[in-house]
């Protein structure tokens, strides 16, 4: 693996987020759900980011929020890949009418505003961890399929594919053994970028009120709640906001460094 500053920074940021998610109980100084009388207190030695309107430690809530965000992020990316990759592979390899129709549909879908789409659907099905992952995955799969299809088109014309065809390989076999392995690089990059986008969008949805219901710490929701108290303690909003930014940036950097 070539050393690129982009990749290193990306991994560092993602490592931060992952450790928060996995080791939340260890890292966070306080119980994120425990309210206290000391509400809206400013940053202090005991509460590095201060406390929110229910007296809960903001830093601990930010650390615990990583878990929800990463779960949704990975879940959505998985869904997007699971649907998008096969569609892209098949459409790209098959070509012809099947491909043309697929391209038309995907292009149309991709030009719709993703956030609005996710917003409407989530509003209807209700925001839960699983639902959010599914909805965001559903919104993201078309652009994944488009990318994979592009790769397939590039690979399809290579001689080793022709050779495989001449040797009597069935389309399914060729796709599985020749085409798919060569799209790995793009797929990996796209996965990381999808995680980034999913966390970005789910944070926006939470900000708009469609996130995981309280009291679970949820970055977007925290930003929204903290907005009212911006003048008193900006960290209520900016803390979780920065967490979102760092995590999104980290995954994006990794993804773009693979290309």
């Amino acid at each position: 693996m070539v050393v690129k500053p982009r990749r290193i920074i990306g991994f560092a940021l993602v490592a931060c987020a992952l450790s928060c998610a996995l080791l939340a109980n260890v890292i966070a100084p306080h119980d994120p759900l425990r309210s206290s009388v000391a509400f809206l207190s400013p940053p202090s030695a005991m509460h590095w980011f201060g406390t929110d309107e229910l007296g809960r430690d903001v830093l601990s809530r930010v650390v615990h929020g990583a878990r929800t965000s990463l779960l949704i992020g990975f879940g959505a990316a998985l869904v997007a890949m699971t649907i998008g990759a096969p569609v892209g592979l098949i459409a790209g390899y098959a070509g012809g009418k099947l491909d043309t129709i697929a391209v038309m549909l995907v292009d149309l879908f991709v030009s719709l505003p993703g956030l609005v789409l996710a917003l409407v659907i989530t509003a209807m099905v209700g925001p839960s961890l699983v639902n959010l992952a599914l909805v965001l995955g559903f919104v993201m799969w078309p652009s994944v399929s488009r990318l994979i299809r592009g790769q397939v088109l590039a690979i399809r014309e290579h001689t080793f594919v022709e050779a495989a065809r001449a040797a009597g390989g069935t389309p399914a076999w060729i796709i599985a053994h020749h085409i798919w392995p060569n799209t790995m690089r793009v797929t990996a990059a796209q996965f990381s970028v999808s995680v980034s986008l999913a966390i970005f969008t789910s944070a926006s949805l939470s900000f708009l009120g469609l996130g995981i219901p309280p009291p679970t710490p949820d970055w977007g929701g925290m930003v929204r709640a903290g907005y009212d108290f911006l003048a008193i303690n900006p960290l209520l909003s900016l803390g979780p906001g920065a967490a979102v930014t760092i995590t999104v940036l980290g995954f994006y950097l990794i993804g773009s460094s693979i290309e």
Partner: protein
Amino acid sequence: MLTIVIRRVLLAIPTMIALTALLFFSLTALLGSPAAIMLGQDASTEAVAAINARYGFDRPLYVQYFAWITSAIHGDLGRSHVTQQSVVSAILPAIAVSLELAVLAMMLAAVTAVLSNTLPTGRRIVGPFVVSANLIAITVPNFMLGISLIFIFSVGLGWLPSTGWAPWSEGAFVHLKHLILPVLTLSAYYFGLFSIIYRAEYRDVEKRLFIQAARAKGISRSRVAFRHALPNAILPVITLIGLSMGQLAGGAVVTETVFSMPGIGRLLVASIASHDFPVMLAIAMLIVMGVVVMNLLADIAYTIINPQIRID
């Protein structure tokens, strides 16, 4: 060229019909009974029947669809369930707000992206900064950027207001002052996007032979950059602007919420929260139509600007 344009327009019409129909049916199908949505799950059957009769939800779906389309063409989009006002009267001013925000943000993003990646001296010295700025621009969530800007410029320095909308009646200066922060916030992402695409394209164009041939004529570096390279590199950005405007057809939901702007995005969120089906439906349909139209315009723009397609 005219034939191409006409063909695209003609193709757009069935696309629009198909998409709006699809939207209509899926919304109503997913929602189950719109009446139940509007009244709550445990509404009495009489109340549900009343709603159904009033809004015509008991008719077959395709009848409802055609009825909606025909009324829409006549400028009637129904009445809001919550406010009882005509949907059109609620939507039109909201569209104006969102449109102004979107257009200003796009223009700012496009001009900054193109200029910062074209100016000859700028590119060598400022280059790494621009690349980093691009990365940050496309990953920072709108709400984070917006709130940060409010914190710095409104709460902290007190230079700018924290809301994004003041009607024109309060004076152009006041109106524009309120728009500064939201426009900056919204344009950030698009600046990053346009910059990345344009920069890559510009790099490719710079390597092409006609650039060297132009310099061989003795033309200054900046003239080569702006009159020779830019017109070639900007083509994908034009299309991208069109597509991005389509993406903003639903309004800039997050930005409008952060800055409390009475735009279409915020109206949509509100109508979802208040289960106001007629408004939701109308806005969703408008979004779909807006996307199709903007895609069409982007297509046409590309055809017109690129002489290789425009002529024969």
